[in-house]
């Protein structure tokens, strides 16, 4: 055989395998409104950048007639490529091949690319579209999942790990995404659950559709398992690319700097916030009035919307924002919002992204449901995360900073590097209404006209304590600033914090309240 015919033979073999599960299965995939695994990779990565490995890997199962079956690539595609010219490792499960089911060789391909990503210190993107464990391979498929989970954990905080759910992801398979940094879901396509509707119905008698049980909206809004919600696969890939532009390649680096740009001219920052602390506004408008080009890339937009987390740039550098949202539940902290913020703070800390905290909250959400849901241990997460974080930490108090909420939102006491307050800030153990009722209880109850006295005492307390100057007198806040100087002050604070170094007690790891 000449070299030429060898090459032709290789091409023929490649073409054969690259068809995955064949025309019929591909047609079925398209009917479900889904791209194929290969189309997905090509749509996500830079043009002509994808290189595939382990194309000719075959499954090793012998039982249940599997020895006569050919599964191209064993149902998963792995490789390397670039996004915005920066390297990434990627795997995509191929639903057209045996439903993307995970067997030994399938898992071995995934762990191979995971090992590669960790060794080369580049981000890992996993596209999940699989019916679950390949039952015919028995315990070997369980072993495969375990090996993946272990590597997810090992790589956590070293390289960014991104999971994209583009099909079913059920049973044990859900735990790989759950261990990664960011999970992307797409409406009508993503389905995640531990036990599916049919099992739930047969065992427990509860009837529910797949979409209602573990659809994209459920995970984006209710469970908090997903971080990004997209309306189509292409929309999802755009979001992934955007995220990649904001985060560093690994924990030794900083995010790629962009050309600095001023915020867009819009509503003046002091006109966004109403004077009465009980009237809401959209905190996102404040964030956009201080970020470059007024751009803000929100994470977990629909889950626990009473706190806002996400990325923006200031003078070209990535900044992580954590901000109370007075527009939703008055911006209170509760179990979900504490959990949401705490994990984001730890993400930013692990990947050298400075944290800017914008504060305006009345405290923790009262209620039996909250207490019984464990608001103590969930609320503790945010304290832990802020205290532990050693990246530059800047806080701006816009209006309310009451009680436990004041301490939790990156206060000086948790080692914020800079704490600024607007003149409208109210830093106190609780709001004037609650405080007056307690401090002046006797005067109010004994008065001839209790309501009148109550209002009077509320005003008295407000005048005396509901301002930033009591805390400023103690040095708990560094400076009372004019609202329009907010961006400038944060920028300067970040600039002088650039070489921040702190020494923590030596330990293997802490024991955070999770």
């Amino acid at each position, binding site marked *: 055989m000449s070299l030429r015919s060898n090459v032709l033979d290789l091409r023929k073999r490649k073409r054969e395998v690259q068809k995955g599960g064949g025309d019929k299965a591909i047609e079925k995939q398209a009917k479900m409104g889904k791209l194929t695994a290969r189309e997905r990779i090509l749509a996500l990565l830079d043009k002509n950048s994808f290189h595939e490995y382990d194309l000719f890997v075959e499954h090793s199962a012998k039982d249940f007639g599997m020895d006569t079956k050919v599964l191209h690539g064993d149902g998963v595609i792995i490789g390397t490529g670039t996004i915005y010219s920066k390297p990434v490792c990627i795997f995509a499960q191929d639903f057209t091949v045996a439903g993307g089911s995970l067997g030994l060789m399938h898992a071995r391909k995934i762990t191979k690319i995971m090992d590669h990503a960790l060794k080369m210190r580049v981000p890992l993107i996993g596209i999940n579209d699989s019916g679950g464990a390949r039952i015919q391979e028995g315990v070997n498929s369980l072993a495969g999942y375990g090996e993946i989970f272990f590597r997810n954990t090992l790589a956590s905080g070293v390289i960014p790990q991104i999971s994209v759910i583009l099909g079913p992801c059920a049973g044990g398979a859900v735990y790989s995404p759950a261990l990664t940094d960011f999970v992307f879901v797409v409406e009508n396509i993503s389905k995640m659950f531990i036990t599916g509707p049919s099992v739930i119905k047969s065992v427990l008698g509860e009837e529910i559709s797949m979409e209602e049980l573990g659809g994209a909206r459920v995970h984006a809004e209710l469970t908090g398992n997903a971080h990004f919600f997209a309306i189509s696969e292409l929309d999802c890939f755009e979001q992934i690319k955007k995220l990649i532009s904001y985060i560093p390649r690994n924990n030794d680096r900083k995010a790629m700097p962009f050309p600095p740009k001023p915020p867009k001219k819009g509503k003046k920052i002091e006109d966004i916030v109403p004077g009465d602390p*009980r009237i809401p506004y959209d905190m996102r408008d404040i964030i956009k009035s201080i970020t470059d080009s007024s751009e803000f890339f929100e994470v977990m937009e629909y889950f626990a919307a009473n706190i806002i987390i996400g990325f923006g740039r200031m003078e070209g550098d990535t900044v992580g924002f954590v901000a109370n949202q007075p527009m939703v*539940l008055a911006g209170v902290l509760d179990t979900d919002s504490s959990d949401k913020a705490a994990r984001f703070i730890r993400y930013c800390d692990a990947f050298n992204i400075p944290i800017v905290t914008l504060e305006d909250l009345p405290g923790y959400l009262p209620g*039996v449901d909250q207490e019984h849901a464990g608001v103590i241990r969930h609320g503790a997460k945010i304290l832990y995360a802020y205290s532990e974080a050693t990246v530059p930490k800047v806080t701006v108090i816009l209006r309310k900073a009451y009680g436990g909420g004041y301490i939790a939102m990156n206060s000086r006491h948790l080692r914020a590097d800079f704490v600024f307050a607007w003149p409208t800030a109210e830093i106190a153990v609780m709001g004037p209404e609650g405080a007056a009722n307690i401090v002046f209880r006797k005067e109010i109850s004994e008065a001839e006209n209790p309501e009148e006295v109550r209002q009077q005492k509320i005003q008295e307390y407000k005048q005396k304590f509901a301002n930033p100057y009591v805390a400023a007198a103690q040095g708990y806040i560094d400076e009372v600033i004019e609202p329009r100087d907010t961006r400038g002050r944060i920028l300067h604070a970040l600039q002088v914090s650039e070489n921040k170094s702190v020494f923590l007690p030596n330990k293997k790891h802490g024991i955070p309240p999770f």
Partner: protein
Amino acid sequence: MTEEKELKTLVVQGAVYQTTYTWKFENRVNWEAPNPNHIYSFIPGTIIDIFIKPRQKVKEGETLLLLEAMKMQNQVRMPFDGEIVKIHVKKDDIIPKKHMMLEIKPARIR
């Protein structure tokens, strides 16, 4: 999910805030003190046997019915000496969690 919502009120420490609610907050279950005379299912499942009748006197610890869930036959027992008042389930019923199965009352203390 981002449409304009009508403002509602939330009271935190005496102050009334204008804001919007989340789906979870709106659908939270109000807490009620448990009634010791009501026996609820603690897990969804199937009633596979009932051993008692209304007005029957039962000693503490006696098995009242079997609730099968997750392939386990759970014995539901009498929490104190007393009497069966009403039975809300029958054999082979598939019931959800927190479904009231029995009403009971304690024996009169002599």
